[in-house]
């Protein structure tokens, strides 16, 4: 051959840069439930239909009004004794017990709480103020306290209050080394991440000098150690005046006068909370989590304006995110693995008596709660999570194959198939799967493929269970 030819699969022209997205979709009530919860259920769908879209959203936004006593009774029981413990008590418990309980309670709350939007917010903020539960340090025992005093009280509250609570959280100060940040030995780690990840965003307009100045402001912010007396203050916030740099600082152009003591850090938190970059960064991050990866600048600005007007009212921002005038159509959101797992357990009305038996599955999917090592939190993009599908496929199979002891799904006529006429047909079973898991929105081709799987013989109970498992792994069930 005399002419050198490129093989067919060799593209001479590189393709244009395309950010991976799942495209744009119109949002339905089913879609709205998926976006505001850890997964659609038929019961939730019926309730939302009866209440109407607006009233349903309003209820979820006002989570305190929703009765969650069944869940709370379980959480207060023998299964989770550490959840309500003080720092002092937590420090006396085996670390792995504390870690297991916060992980397992995270799953139980996601699946069984009736305050679904609230739990989604907890998930969102747990990544925003991420602390690695397995870090060498106090996190193993004390992250529970951060969860119950930083994340949960403010998840639908006011952002400045949450930012401040996090800055006073011993676990955060320990995780980001501020407990070693002193006048003679400044440590920039917390100061940098406070601005980069917690408030302004990396392009929020701060400089390396601001990092140095903010670190100086937070010198002496630490916690009382494990041998302090009285013991009741162990692992609580401590301002150690002796380690504070009392000189003047200039932060983002603001002069912080000398001699301010602890007030220096408090002033920084106020500056950051009131900064327009913070409004923009939080608005953008919320939209990316709940609406889609590529919100327009106008869309972001409209949510940021609410932050500024309300001084950081998360509930007001979320109301606008979910009622956005930009909402037709929304961008597709891929469920992250934890969301995917919780959504399957919810849609299939699973009984979860031993949530610990799901920890290995969560680990193998790459999304065990509180197990992201770096302070940026678990990623929230389609590109990050679309590669590893196998654990999602296997979760469906394992769940329906009763591989998780203490986690069960009743896929019979006494359970999920109740009311279907005998003999059971492939078409009827797939119709039920469609209603239970997709609110009737299962794509036709996936219905056909699943029906084909159940045919040609009369479906056995084993095959029915496999069909449910395959639906958990199906393409449509991956999207929120």
């Amino acid at each position, binding site marked *: 051959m005399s002419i050198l030819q490129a093989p067919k699969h060799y593209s001479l022209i590189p393709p244009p840069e395309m950010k991976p997205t799942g495209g744009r979709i119109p949002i339905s009530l089913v879609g709205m439930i998926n976006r505001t919860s850890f997964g659609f259920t038929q019961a939730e769908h019926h309730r939302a239909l009866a209440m109407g879209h607006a009233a349903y959203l309003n209820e979820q936004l006002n989570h305190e009004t929703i009765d969650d006593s069944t869940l709370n009774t379980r959480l207060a029981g023998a299964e989770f004794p550490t959840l309500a413990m003080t720092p002092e008590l937590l420090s006396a418990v085996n670390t792995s017990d504390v870690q297991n309980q916060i992980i397992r309670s995270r799953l139980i709350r996601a699946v069984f709480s009736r305050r679904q939007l609230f739990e989604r917010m907890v998930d969102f903020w747990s990544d925003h103020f991420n602390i690695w539960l397995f870090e060498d340090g106090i996190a193993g025992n004390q992250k529970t306290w951060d969860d119950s005093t930083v994340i949960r009280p403010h998840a639908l509250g006011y952002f400045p209050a949450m930012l401040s609570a996090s800055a006073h959280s011993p676990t955060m100060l320990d995780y980001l080394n501020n407990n070693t940040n002193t006048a003679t030995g400044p440590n920039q780690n917390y100061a940098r991440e406070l601005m980069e990840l917690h408030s302004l965003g990396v392009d929020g307009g701060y400089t390396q000098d601001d990092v140095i100045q903010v670190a100086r402001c937070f010198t002496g912010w630490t916690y009382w150690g494990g041998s302090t007396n009285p013991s009741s203050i162990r692992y609580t916030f401590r301002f150690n005046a002796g380690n504070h740099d009392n000189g003047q600082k200039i932060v983002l152009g603001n002069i912080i006068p000398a001699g301010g003591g602890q007030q220096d850090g408090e002033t920084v938190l106020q500056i950051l909370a009131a900064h327009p970059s913070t409004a923009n960064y939080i608005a953008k991050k919320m939209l990316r989590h709940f609406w889609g990866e590529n919100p327009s600048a106008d869309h972001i600005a409209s949510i940021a304006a609410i932050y500024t007007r309300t001084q950081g009212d998360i509930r007001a921002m979320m109301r606008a995110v979910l009622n956005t005038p930009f909402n037709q159509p929304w961008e597709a959101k891929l469920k992250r693995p934890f969301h995917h797992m919780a959504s399957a357990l919810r849609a299939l009305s699973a009984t979860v008596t031993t949530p610990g038996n799901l920890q290995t599955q969560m680990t193998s999917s790459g999304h065990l709660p509180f197990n992201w090592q770096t302070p940026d939190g678990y990623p929230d993009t389609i590109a990050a999570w679309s590669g*590893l599908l196998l654990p999602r496929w296997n979760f469906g*199979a394992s769940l329906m194959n009763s591989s998780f002891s203490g986690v069960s799904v009743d896929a019979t006529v006494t359970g999920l198939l109740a009311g279907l006429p005998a003999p059971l047909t492939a078409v009827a079973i797939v119709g039920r799967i469609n209603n239970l898991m997709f609110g009737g929105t299962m794509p036709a081709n996936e219905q056909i493929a699943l029906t084909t799987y159940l045919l040609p013989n009369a479906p056995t109970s084993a095959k029915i269970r496999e069909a449910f498992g395959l639906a958990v792994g199906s393409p449509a069930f991956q999207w929120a």
Partner: protein
Amino acid sequence: MSQDCNACHEYQMLNRRRFLGVSGLAGLSALAAPAWLPRVAFASSHISGRDVIVSIYLRGAADGLTLVPPFGDPAYYTLRPTLAIPRPDDLANPNPRAIDLNGYFGLAPAMAPLLEAYQAGTFAIVHAAGSPDSSRSHFDAQRFMEVGKPRDPSLYTGWLGRHLITANQADPNAVARAIGIGYQLQMTLQGGPKSLPIPDLTNYGLTGPSGTRTARLNYLNTAYAAATDPLRASAANTYNTISVLNSINFGSYVPQGGAAYSNSSFQRALRTTAALIKADVGVEAVAIDRGGWDTHSAQGNLVGGSLYGTMTDLATGLQAFHRDIVQQNWNVTVVVMSEFGRTAAENDSLGTDHGHGGVMFLMGRNINGGLVHGTWPTLSSLYQNQDLHVTTDFRDVLAEVVALRLGNNANLSTVFPGYTPTFRGLTT
């Protein structure tokens, strides 16, 4: 779209390979082949002209001034009165001393296992290397390096991903061109064709009742064929890669050359990568991460310390891979990088903060090793008054590998857009 066709093509090729496997080709090799090789072993000449690349990212900003101490620079000892690695000739110092490489640079004691590869001439160090961007954010700096261009928010693909897009597929039969060891595909590989994240190569298959496994896989294959990208492409790659990985018996793999991998996750990744490379299934690139380098306090350069342990894992892992792969004459290039170095001075927490210039490593039989490359800017003049300057742009290092070891010189402007690299003589 071409990805549809690719998926079909992949599937057909897989079947063709299976056919070859039972029709004689493999029959011959089966006599000599070790048991861990895939049953579908075939001619291994596809990639002889190009190296497989193993890209190792040290996440958290590795302290290049400890890994490869510049003991010949007096300022090093002024800036790090406690943390500096003692000079090789500082016999009065009770702590383990630097291992002399060339009279000016050394290896930290924990990095001693790398001396073997360095002396063999197949391990090269590039010092004062890194990104010219001033970011001290781990996440931005990693992203800038992995996409291969600082501060371009419109780039969503990695440098290695774009290499794979533009390079002719090395093995026309390959169903997996790149694997990122982990749960998320590394930014380095994003955008590349037939590229998947896999946390554990030895455990990648569909669970559930074996009697229905094929039928269930077929359902998933059918359902995902009509799905939206990126799920569609990802599912096709998953479907095809399951077969390939399951054909390799990782469990009975015996490393060669006296290589001894530990059971750390990093070394398990290297060990399984070695088996994957020798199985010769056409994988062209593997990305591996090693975290734990963000040593703000009590960094612990000495035995028992945190950084000591991290360096030991890196060094012993690379030593094993060197014996197992490089010494066995496999065409593989290893690159090791980190987002930035750390402050030249130690802080009062006996750690170091986010810095600038760092160190990069290259390993392979065609690497100009046994040398510390680069221009030493000295530590008496510091970047922003606190860090080692960058005198070698990381893209110079990577571009030379792409051009001369991965055979893709023609597309360097796509792999590293907006940058004209200078080759530094790092390859032979």
